[in-house]
């Protein structure tokens, strides 16, 4: 150190300074849309607590300006006779699965968009109308949508619905995780109204931790699986249940992201402009052959 020249000292300190600033520099606040934010939000649905009051259905419709019956009409439990799916008029629905034993409760399951971490709809949309947002929600831009309905085919949960009966400007409709509400610091409408707090809104990471903690505390109450933790690469909405999820009509899905297969094929084929080049080459070849044939015919004449 004593032998160090002034020049060397300045050099090293400049390097060190650069290094430190490099290390401490904060990550860019707004994460790019294809990288998942570690603080993205989610909802843990504890179906063992749900009583099937369907207040969430009413709140959802009200929040999205969809026509709805008065709140009292939701007490009618006869709707549970049929299994329902979310559609363009109700973005979330609650279904009921009968109790297994006389002394246990029926299981009520709320169904809506799962807001996948690797959403197939985003991948499938050819005009880029769908996007996975920083806060975890998967939303879409109605202005960009051309109504191709590829998203409906791609979704592993068959959630996006299309306004078929609208002749003019039909739109794709699905749960948007109340993006307009959460943007201004409000809770999603269903989370806010749920009297039982079946729905817990929080950081997805924390929710996964909480879900496993609940299972470990009450192993006799919960089926040992958090649906959505790994399914199709993870979803923002997570489920706890008292029974095997396949008995509750949850689709059996692998842990690899849904867009994986389709994207691999598409990106493989379209990589380096190979298909267009090949197509033009083929067309060029046909033209060249035809041209040769024509000139041959002309010579013969």
């Amino acid at each position: 150190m004593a032998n160090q020249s002034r020049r060397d000292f300045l050099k090293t300190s400049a390097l060190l300074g650069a290094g430190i600033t490099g290390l401490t520099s904060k990550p860019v606040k707004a994460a790019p849309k294809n990288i998942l934010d570690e603080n993205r939000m989610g909802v843990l649905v504890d179906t063992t607590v749900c009583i099937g009051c369907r207040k969430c259905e009413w709140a959802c419709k009200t929040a999205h300006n969809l026509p709805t019956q008065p709140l009292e009409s939701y007490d009618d439990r006869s709707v549970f006779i049929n299994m329902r799916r979310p559609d363009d008029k109700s973005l979330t629905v609650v279904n009921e699965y009968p109790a297994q034993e006389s002394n246990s409760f029926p299981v009520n399951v709320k169904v809506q968009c799962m807001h996948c971490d690797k959403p197939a709809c985003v991948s499938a949309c050819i005009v880029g109308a769908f996007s996975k947002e920083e806060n975890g929600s998967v939303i879409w831009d109605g202005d960009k949508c051309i109504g191709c309905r590829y998203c409906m085919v791609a979704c592993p949960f068959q959630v996006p619905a299309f306004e078929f009966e609208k002749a003019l400007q039909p739109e794709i409709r699905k749960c948007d995780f109340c993006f307009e509400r959460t943007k201004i610091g409000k809770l999603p409408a269903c989370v806010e109204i749920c009297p039982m707090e079946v729905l817990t809104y929080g950081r997805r990471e924390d929710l996964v931790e909480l879900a496993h903690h609940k299972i470990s505390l009450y192993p006799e109450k919960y089926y040992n699986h958090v649906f959505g933790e790994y399914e199709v690469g993870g979803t923002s909405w997570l489920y706890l249940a008292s029974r095997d999820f396949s008995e509750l009509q949850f689709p059996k899905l692998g842990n690899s992201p849904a867009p994986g297969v389709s994207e691999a094929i598409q990106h493989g084929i379209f990589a380096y402009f190979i298909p267009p080049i090949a197509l033009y080459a083929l067309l060029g070849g046909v033209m060249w052959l035809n041209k040769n044939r024509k000139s041959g015919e002309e010579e013969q004449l």
Partner: protein
Amino acid sequence: MKIKILYWFLIPLSIFGQTKIDKNHSSQNIKCSTCHSCEIPTKENPCIKPCPRESMIRIDQKAEDAPRILTIDRIKETDIYAPVKFSHLAHAEMSDLAGGCRTCHHYNPPGNVIGCSECHATQRQRTDINKPDLKGAYHQQCMNCHRAWSGNTDCISCHEIKGKEKVIASVTSDGKKRIHPEIKTPDKIKFDTNIKHGKQVTFYHAEHNELFGLECSDCHSNESCVKCHAVEKVKSPKKLSSKEKHKKCSSCHNTESNCSSCHSNFEKGGFNHAVVTGFDLTKYHGKLNCSRCHTTKSQFKGLKNECKNCHGEWTWENFNHKITGLVLDDTHGEFECENCHKEATYTKPECSDCHEDKSYPKDLPGKKVK
């Protein structure tokens, strides 16, 4: 990472900030690790474990010490329903049969039993997601039982619509009469068992209550709500082990041996003190409460069939023989009791020690009176 640290810091703060904890709670008989995650908690860093915890502290109080009616009006978000009037006493009385205060008050720091809002936040939007908010906590607690016995999840069974309030049958705010209807107990219940010698057990329920002064909760301490409120929903009796079947009786009866005291091939009679213990009560003790002699509650064993258990030593001076219906003559009046009465129960006297030709009851040592 920073945020995570902040969470861990906020969670204990939020709990500590909300609950009033007895200052001397460290000297009470509770393991520190039940609530604290570190070995030496300080005021600055109490390191309180977030809820739900593996184990909770639970304290019981008498139902009468708790509020009679609670008006639940802390949740302001709801604008549809009027505040709920919760008949706390009626529920507390019922909970005596189902695990006491802890049936609902699952966490109580040392001191008095604390209310739900001490820990559960009134706002749904909050940082600590480990425990439900107040609205969720109430509903989860209420519906767990209500749903089980009534099968009804209608809001209006507890809530009144704002502006249309009327008195719900079970809630009377005047606080005068007992809220829960009187529970009628059966006189006797017959159990059929698969024991070869003694298939039938006749259980005299009313007699157990009246004769032995038992409260419902002395035997029924861990029942579920459906046991009374939805009899048809009670589990079909599982195959219980012999020990489980005898559990309720064995707190007073010896069920290991002496099966025939309860089991027999025919319907047994009710309790008879003379037959079972050899001490006849009908003559002098018929009007006494059991507790006059059996002073420890629910403990009927251990007393010998001796008068001195209660009466002390009798001598000719302190015992008025007249009450037996016989006034001793002067000759016999100043003998020690044991001279004639050889048994500890002072039954039949022996005359043969002094008189060769006399015997009781043919000859009497005095005059009979009424």
